């Protein structure tokens, strides 16, 4: 049972972590809780379904599986990036420098808007997400492990490592860090701050898109309100790890999912969410900077 709960938790953790990245990146750079981020993830899943439908009618899913998989991830990534950038441009940029509450309300409004927009155009019923990857399963230390789970875990961890490297090593990554630390100064050395902020939203959204498609493939079912719960959990994960801290998001995501998984398995399934929120509250009260320290903390934000 322990091994099985570990597997359960790791896969969910990968999803939490990917979404948490979006919260953390944006918070790091704007000190803004991007409430609408969960909806971007949801949109990612829906775009994935649309792509699959088109590929299906073209017959590509039969003839070229590898290309299909690439497209099923790539197109939602592009779309979500576009949504993220638009979101920032419409709802947050006009409010830069406004009282702190304004962008938060605007974010909540945007979240409502997007969620219900999808409901209007896509209908409220659950949508099936056809599974492309029929991978077998095997047993490991008494736990059932599914090929898809391995695929998700590897993809998520790989992406996060790539992001880490990107932020650490590239010029744009450094510009992101510089902008997060001192926006005015970054503009004084020639960084186009607006572009960097838009880019940050894009990256966060790309990660969310991947999470959305992964969740669609994994659970096979998608609806327009998956963004809220996932968003809340991912946000908790980001806070747990230290909001504004990219490694923290990864750590927080896995930690929260594992704690939840063990709690649900050993203690109580219905009190699972209470437990998650308890963790959030306790961490914030006793260690508000999170495990690794947040954007203002000692730890580097990479």
């Amino acid at each position, binding site marked *: 049972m322990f091994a099985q709960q570990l597997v359960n938790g790791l896969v969910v953790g990968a999803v939490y972590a990917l979404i948490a990245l979006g919260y953390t990146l944006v918070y790091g750079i704007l*000190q803004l*809780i991007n409430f609408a981020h969960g909806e971007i993830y949801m949109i990612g899943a*829906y*775009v994935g379904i*649309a*792509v699959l439908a088109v590929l299906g009618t073209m017959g590509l899913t039969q003839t070229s599986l590898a290309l299909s998989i690439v497209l099923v991830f790539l*197109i939602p990534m592009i*779309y979500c990036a*576009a949504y993220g950038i*638009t979101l920032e441009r*419409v*709802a947050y940029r*006009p*409010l830069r*420098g*406004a*009282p*702190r*509450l*304004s962008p*938060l*309300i*605007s974010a*909540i*409004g*945007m*979240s*409502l*808007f*997007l*969620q*219900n*927009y999808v*409901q*209007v*155009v*896509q209908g409220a019923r659950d949508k099936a997400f056809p599974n492309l990857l029929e991978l077998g399963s095997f047993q490991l230390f008494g736990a059932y492990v599914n090929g898809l789970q391995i695929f998700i875990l590897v993809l998520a961890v790989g992406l996060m490592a790539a992001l880490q490297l990107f932020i650490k090593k590239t010029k744009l990554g450094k510009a992101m860090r510089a902008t997060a*630390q001192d*926006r*005015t100064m970054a503009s004084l050395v020639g960084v186009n701050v607006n572009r960097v902020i838009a880019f940050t939203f894009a990256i966060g959204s790309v990660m969310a898109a991947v999470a959305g498609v992964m969740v669609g493939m994994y659970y096979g079912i998608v609806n327009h309100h998956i963004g809220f719960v996932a968003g*809340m959990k991912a*946000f*908790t994960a980001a*806070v747990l790890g230290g*909001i*504004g801290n990219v490694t923290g998001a990864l750590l927080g995501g896995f930690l929260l999912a594992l704690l939840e998984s063990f709690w649900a398995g050993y203690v109580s399934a219905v*009190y699972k*969410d*209470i437990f998650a*929120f*308890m963790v*959030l*509250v306790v961490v*914030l*009260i006793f260690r*508000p*900077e999170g495990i690794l320290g*947040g*954007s*203002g903390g000692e730890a580097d934000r990479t």
Partner: protein
Amino acid sequence: MSAYARVPLIGLWFAFLALPLAGWRNSLWIGLGCALVVLIVSVARASVQSGYLAWPAGRVKAGFTTAWSFIEEKSYDKRYWSLFLLLVIALPWTLDRYSTDVLVITGIYIMLALGLNVVVGFAGLLDLGYVAFYAVGAYSYALLNSWYGLSFWPALGVGVACSALFGVILGIPVLRLRGDYLAIVTLGFGEIIRLVLNNWDNVTQGPNGILGIGRPYLGDMRLYKPMHFYYLVLALCVITIFIVNRLDKSRLGRAWAAMREDETVAECVGVNIVYTKLSAFAFGAAWAGFGGVVFSAKQTFISPESFTFFESVIILCMVVLGGMASIPGVMLGAFILTVLPEALRELTLFRPMLLGGAMVLMMVLRPQGLLQAKGGRHHLERDEPQGEAGAGR
């Protein structure tokens, strides 16, 4: 003319965004619609700037500003208040049962919004889990009534006390948190309360909720019609407004204002932060408890579904939309956000979407809210952009 060159591009962009979700036909319309809106806005702006319409536009704007500030000013005038009260007392006689019921709900929300306004507007503490106190009030009446047969009037007191107590209980651990972190902890707290109500089956009946909650009695008269509740809620609203108004002007109110503007400075001039903060939470929560008791008496049925995070958001929106720290503003906000959705019931499907869009638009165009608070801008201070995350400083 680059402003016009942007128009088709913006249209194309939104059509592109809509494409995979809405299908190509709808996307086309969405793109056209967006382009049209942008076009109208740019034409209007250009003609105002170039002087074409500058004069009439200026007149309209000036006229509107004057009219609005007249309303703003008068909304604080006591004489108008009493007139308004007369109007409100007469109102239900001209209305049907359903509209009166909507107004009862509006009244409950006015109480809630005024209570949240104490926490957010007066004291500057962003609370995203306010609905928890509402739930505590509602459940304390529901449970005491169904177990011990406690009647409405004493329950009103007990509910308020319970909620205030919860306010303090929440307040103590979060004393040293500020800004966003406070918001998140309160959000978490709100969810915890809801989940406990949903899962503690033995006590709260879990998701089934509590049925058959007793109606209040006034002497021998059983209050059950919307009209009855209308006057009950009206009376409670008047009390709420009176007390909240006095609080704002009291010593405590000034301490809240000082704490809102700068906690450290407030502490330096002798404001007891612990007491001031806790009292803000307690007072805010108390009104939520008030509203909760009335709500359960009105519904005769409550379940955890009525106390979701979305509810907290709506109440917060009322405060912000109306104008933070402005009592008439908050009331207006509550009125708009309860009556408008009812009026738009035909548009059910689009309602939450429009609400969301309106929230964004409002923040962009008039972030201070409809009626600005008297005596200047009240808002949560934004940290310097380079500021630290806001906690533990």
